[in-house]
């Protein structure tokens, strides 16, 4: 079985593309479209990496990092997808323990390189 990626993004379009590309590269992808689902999933599952959008309904990507690092006490690599011009969000993400970030519009190829790099660290 491939490495497990948790993909958290409410943008169905981007998520579908990333899901397709990650699976093509042999990853086992679980996609959640809101923070609540992500939280539920993480109660029982342990993905190898988390790729998350910042702006999501119920529970933002920033809150997700806080939850993973401070409540679940996990050091699973987290890559944040952020919009251009949201530097403040990216800084908060790094402060809370995000490992990397990628700016929208997301190039799937670039994301795959970043995911591979984090997983193989």
């Amino acid at each position, binding site marked *: 079985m491939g490495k497990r990626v948790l993909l958290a993004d*409410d*943008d*169905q*379009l*981007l998520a*579908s*593309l990333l899901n*397709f*590309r990650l699976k*093509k590269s042999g990853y086992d992808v679980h996609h959640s479209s809101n923070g609540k689902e992500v939280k539920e999933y993480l109660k029982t599952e342990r993905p190898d990496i988390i790729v998350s959008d910042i*702006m999501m*309904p*119920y529970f933002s990507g920033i809150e997700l990092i806080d939850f993973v690092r401070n409540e679940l006490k996990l050091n699973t690599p987290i890559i944040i997808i952020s*919009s251009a011009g949201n530097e403040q969000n990216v800084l908060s993400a790094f402060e809370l323990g995000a490992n990397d970030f990628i700016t*929208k*519009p*997301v*190039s*799937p*190829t670039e994301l795959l390189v970043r995911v591979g790099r984090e997983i193989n660290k």
Partner: protein
Amino acid sequence: MSISKSKDLIGQLSNLERTVSEFSFEELSTQDSKVIQSYFNSFRNSLESHIYNRNNGTNLKEQVVEKEEVEKELPNKNQFIAHVSNQIRTPLNSIIGFANLLNEEKLNTSQHKKVQAIQFASISLLNLIDEVFEYSKISTGYINFETIDFNLQGLLNDVMFLCETLMVDRQIELIIDIDENVPKIIKGDPSKLSEVLLNVLGNSIKFINQGYIKLGVSAKECDENQFILKFSVADTGIGIAKEKLETIFNCYAQAKDDTFVTYCGTGLGLSITKEIVEKQNGEIDIISEEGIGTTITFSIPYATGNISNRPVIQNENSDIEKGKIVLSGTEILVFEDNLMNQHLIKAQLTKWGCKVYTHANLKEGLSILATKKIDLILMDLKMPNLNGFDISKVLRAHKDVHINTVPIVAFSADFTEQDSKDCKEIGMNDFLLKPYTLDELMSTIIKNKREEDTSMKVEHLLQKIMIEPKETTRVDLNGLLQDCFGEIEILNELIKLFKMNALEFSGNVKLHLQTDNLKEVAFAAHKLKAGFAMLKANGMRQLIVELEAQCKANRPNEVKELYQLFLNDYPLLEQNLDTNLAGLNKI
């Protein structure tokens, strides 16, 4: 009569109000609760301002009592009913509309149940009002009876089909017994006969738990031009107590006080039935025993029909096979809000091999029209929120030639001359009167459905070529196709998703601009811009980025202007998108 009905109305209004006030918003997340709370406030305001007349300080209860006094002096008390019905009908439609909107939100099970209770309470109330109104129309002689040749056998088949659909999953036998001497073609009013049969059979279905329902039809000739048709509907239902039998055809009489609660009846069905039968010089009678069953018999005189006068396709036997031959593969979009009717029409059209999409609102309908080849639209004219006329206007004004030329057939239970004029003016193609026979449905679809017309294709193509290559309408899918590793199915799927997102954006922005909720507009814009980036629609992406920025700067007028630009240019962008995609699909 109106006194008891007014009490009923008030009872149901309180019921509705209670279900509404039981709805709690506290459990919702902040983002959703704001949206829903705003729906709810408008909902409540509408309820209060229409139903409780705040201006003169009296509430509906007092008004009804006052009106009852006045009513006694009115020469025509039905005018009063029509007046009150209309007054309540309008806000009720918006209540139903808002409840539908609420239901589309993300709700938990208990909230969902409560919204359903609101929907149920408001729809029951609406049905009640409709029946009151129908009754007042009939009893004032406002209603006209047709005299046309029609296929009795076909009508009976259709009625039985409807009843079977109502009894799905129930262990009840439906038997039909037609005497040999019953003529196939007769002259009279087919829609009124269907209504009477459906009322009587519908009643049996409502009050039966096990056993059978039997419809018998026989004919008695009076002279060579006229005969009397006798119908009997016998059931093994709960039956009616002796003392109640005498008043069962009276307005609003129901066998037991709690009948409404158990069986959702309004008590008007049988009195309407009696009026319709008697207005056609017929007779109706009932025998019943509690716990054993009920038999209703009615007879109506008809004139002998002339087979050559029957204008639509004749098909005496079941027409499923025929339907399959002529309609198989036809894609039909049905705008209909009544779930039962949705179910019925879908069941029938599917039998004929049609592909059916049923929706009750413009947004969903447009998304179907944008992605499917739809050959015909069946449009219910009376729907909450946007009615059939409004939706048709939007479709006819649409920029996409595929959408603005789609054949539209209106259907409605009552069709006034004004309705007919309006339909023509809007550019609807035809209409069907409810209840229609299957023959009528089939021939209307055949007559109006879109043909594979080469001239239209050329026109479509020309329109595409003539599009001004404006920056905001440009797209380029090559990069995205590469991202999909050249897998065209994935690309098609993504484009479908993108179109849905754009439609959702358009609807959300419109909604939030009404209340100048720029925060929500900015959020919607933020979500859409990534999609435009993926399509390399850089001009449109820039427009959306600007729109988001203007929201953040709290400039509603600028936001509205930019939104208008989006509305103007997006359809062209989508056409370019389709052309681009079609080209890639061919490679």
